[in-house]
């Protein structure tokens, strides 16, 4: 039964602290951030120090699933190093996605065509690959809505 096999796989975040927990079901998962209690700046994941004011006093802040495209490019060639995307390589959009919490995050985009600064985007949390221990490694991208 496919359900059983799925239940056996463990989901792990591609980077500790990037997602709200639990990681299943994926539809409910949001990006997680840190908000500086001193100056209010927001960072993706678990910040070890505020790049704006230097404070180490942070609180957790789940981030919105909707954002706007601030800028973008299209990756036309396979990125260097151990890239885990489709093989053979498929070009993909890369952008800075502006979230209402006041930060812009780098993200792969589901599309490589008809991208436009200011367009609305939505978070997609997905399995990127299986690691050497058989865990499903969970990553993020954004898709136009």
């Amino acid at each position: 039964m496919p359900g059983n096999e799925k239940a056996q796989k463990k989901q792990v975040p591609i980077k500790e602290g990037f997602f709200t927990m639990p990681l299943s079901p994926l539809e409910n998962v949001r990006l997680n951030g840190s908000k500086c209690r001193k100056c209010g700046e927001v960072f993706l994941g678990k910040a070890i120090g505020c790049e704006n004011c230097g404070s180490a006093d942070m609180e957790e802040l789940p981030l919105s699933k909707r954002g706007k495209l601030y800028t973008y490019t299209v990756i036309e060639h396979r990125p260097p190093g151990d890239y885990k995307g489709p093989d053979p390589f498929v070009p993909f959009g890369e952008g800075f996605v502006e979230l209402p919490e006041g930060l812009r995050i780098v993200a792969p985009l589901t599309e490589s065509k008809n991208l436009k600064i200011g367009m609305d985007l939505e978070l997609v949390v997905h399995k990127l690959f299986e690691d050497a221990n058989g865990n499903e490694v969970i990553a993020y991208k954004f898709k136009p809505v």
Partner: protein
Amino acid sequence: MKEVAIVGAGIHKFGRFPDESPIQIALEAVRMALQDANIPWKAIEMAYCARCYLPASTGARIGAALGKTGISIIDVESACASGAVAIRQGVLAIQSGACDVCVVVGVEKMPRGFMEPTTLGFEPWQVYMGLTTNPSYWAMNARRHMHEYGITEMHIAKVAYKNHRNSVHNPYAMYQKAFTMEEILNSPVVCSPTRLLEICAPNEGAAALVLCASEKAHKYTSKPITIAACVHSLPLYASDFRGPIYQLSAKVSNPNPGVVSAKKAYEQAGISPKDVSVAEVQDTDAFNELIHYEELGFCGPGESGRLIDEGATEIGGRIPVNASGGLISKGEPIGASHVGQMVDLVWQLRGQNGPRQVANARVGLGLVTGAMGHSAITIIKR
């Protein structure tokens, strides 16, 4: 503060040299600089080596082949600005009184293709997700700037056109070939809006300078070139697009590091942008050269398209930029690239650059910027 001069300059051609070790490549540049200053290695009191991809203590190994004189030689690194911080450490060493004469050498022997991401500090998750294509960050910066100010792909191509054309006269450049606008605009897109002929390749090469306290420079040369400023900045919060970053603030807006460095450099040199005779700036992609026009005050914000349209940055123009052909034609051995800029500017100020000579060049400015937002500017004058 004690004044520092450049009394010798040397370079090893930038390109691909499978039969030469990095030490051999560096040796050629250092020996040329020493000969230019007519100074023996044993008279050198300290040395700095800029490198990013080469192994530990590259400087010590270069020094060994020149003769083990026991002097302090250390390696310094600040990504693409490595050469500049090596010059800066040399200047500080002389100004501190620790030495009167030192050598600065930048060298690199880089793998082909996009820069290896983990050496640059990209984390594994960025590698897995494919967010490590170095030029993609420049491209996203370009796309946003174009959106805000109306710079076009034609403006970007014109920069590449100018620099490739200038390279024809530079025997130290990797590529010495002019391209038509059509060839440039028809070259493959690497990361939109950036095309293959608008981008520079990481490669191999070395460059070296002999620095000397100005008060003693007359011992080595009748034409000392004064280092009027050498500054290095990291970006203020959220002010830079360069990788490896994974976020920017949407609320805090600070001046970018090129602007900060330019302000510091002009103040230190006591000059304004209009005093610059010739500049070498980091055109690792052609769009960056446009941004640097604005950062350096060669034009106002968003006016760089007009400046290239007017031909102001051509060799015969008001403020020639990348008369050497720029990194687009030279390639970017990152430890060596800024030192190489300064070698070409020294030759400009001495009037020895032949067909790429800028008439009556009196003040030269070199700018580099790189991963993590490292930004550095050196200004020299005669």
